[in-house]
């Protein structure tokens, strides 16, 4: 790398990742560690230590890139034609997405595995009353609130479009439009999370369960789903709840991380930080955001429709 190049790399991402790992190890041990798996409060220190390291790494990372005005990593393009115009940062992002796909593949295949193994509730209703092995799809629980899932789907699809438009605005040296499109993406992502949290609250508190429900009759239109969810549908209620909340929660966490990244992008775009020559970061964020959209493309039908 030549001396006049704008950026010389940073240790911040490495620190961020190691500290994140420490934080999660601390969290798991503090809540579920110990001999009886009831949690060991001593590990909260590890959790907060990791959290502090993660925030430090994050701030270092932001600081390193805040004043950057030129592309980096371009030198890799001349190594071999196979690399085309892929920069190290872009290739690194793809490797990151590669690992992310594996995370969600595991969650979704585990869910499909359960669905294939356990008979559905509505296929043999009478035998399922009071028996755990019958599967009540989250889709049936949500069916009366399906419109919010559909709105969320359109919000994410539209936000994918606004990210693309932000990138093109930056390429056309239009910082105001770039900021506006990034803000639109943020608003759409926030709508997604707000609706998701509201939906979770409704399901957790059993608001889909009407006072007039007949336990022997599944009547989705009138909020009568299954007796075992009379008092709510939550993470520890059943296997259906575990798979639903862990998968949608993991996805929601990715949206939340995206919103934090968007705040940085909006702030930098607002000070004319992206232009024809420097828009790499928006493109890389776009890859991440499209991936989040992509996951929802699979989560939505399997948890909300079927």
């Amino acid at each position, binding site marked *: 790398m030549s001396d006049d190049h704008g950026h010389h790399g940073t240790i911040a991402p490495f620190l961020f990742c190691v500290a994140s790992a420490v934080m999660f190890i601390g969290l798991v041990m503090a809540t579920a560690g110990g001999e009886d798996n009831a949690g060991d409060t001593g590990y909260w220190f590890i959790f907060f230590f990791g959290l502090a390291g993660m925030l430090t790494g994050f701030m270092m990372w932001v600081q390193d890139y805040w004043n950057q005005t030129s592309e980096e990593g*371009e030198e890799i*393009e*001349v190594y071999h034609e*196979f*690399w*085309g*115009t*892929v920069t190290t940062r*872009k*290739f690194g992002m*793809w*490797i990151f*997405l*590669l*690992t992310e*796909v*594996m995370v969600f*593949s*595991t969650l*979704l*295949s*585990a*869910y*499909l*595995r359960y669905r*294939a*193994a356990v008979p559905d509730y509505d296929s043999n209703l009478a035998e399922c009353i009071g028996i755990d092995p019958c599967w009540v799809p989250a889709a049936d629980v949500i069916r009366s609130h*399906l419109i919010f899932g*559909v709105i969320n*789907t*359109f919000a994410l*699809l*539209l936000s*994918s*479009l606004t*990210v*693309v*438009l932000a990138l*093109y605005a930056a390429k056309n040296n239009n910082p105001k439009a770039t900021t506006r499109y990034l803000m639109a993406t943020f608003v759409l992502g926030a709508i997604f999370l707000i609706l998701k949290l509201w939906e979770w609250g409704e399901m957790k508190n059993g608001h889909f369960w009407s006072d007039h429900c007949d336990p022997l009759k599944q009547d989705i239109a009138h909020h009568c789903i299954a007796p075992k969810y009379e008092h709510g549908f939550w993470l520890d209620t059943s296997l259906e709840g575990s798979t639903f909340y862990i998968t949608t929660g993991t996805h929601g966490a990715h949206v939340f991380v995206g919103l934090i990244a968007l705040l940085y992008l909006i702030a930098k775009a607002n000070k004319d930080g992206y232009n024809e020559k420097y828009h790499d970061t928006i*493109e890389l964020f*776009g*890859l991440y955001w*499209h*991936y989040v*959209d*992509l996951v929802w*493309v*699979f989560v*939505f*039908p*399997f948890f909300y*429709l*079927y």
Partner: protein
Amino acid sequence: MSEENNSGHEHDEHHEHSFPAWVTFGNIENPIDGFLKVFLWLVFWTLLEVGAILQEFAFVITMIILFGIAIIKCWFICSFFMHMTWDPPLVNRTAAVPAFFMAVLFLAVGLTTPGAVDDLATICGF
């Protein structure tokens, strides 16, 4: 920036303007129009997805419809929003690795009957 890099970017920019005609219902001048059409395609497939599930088809038909539409939407997002159509082969081949992993998990674990995963030899056709 080197001369090679300049030519590379020009090549990239040129290809960013090309969408298949069937996606955009004809030739387009502005790539933004192309992305808008891709978005409309995604909306169309989503509506079809929701409409299909309200028909209450059999399990197999439902799974085929949901998987099929999800894969189609996935293709639209990857190809155009994620620029894979215009990216060099390295990106596509990198993306193929997790796609393969996902397919194996779905087919060998997700959609098998209980006990089947204990018999990998049968799954692999030995």
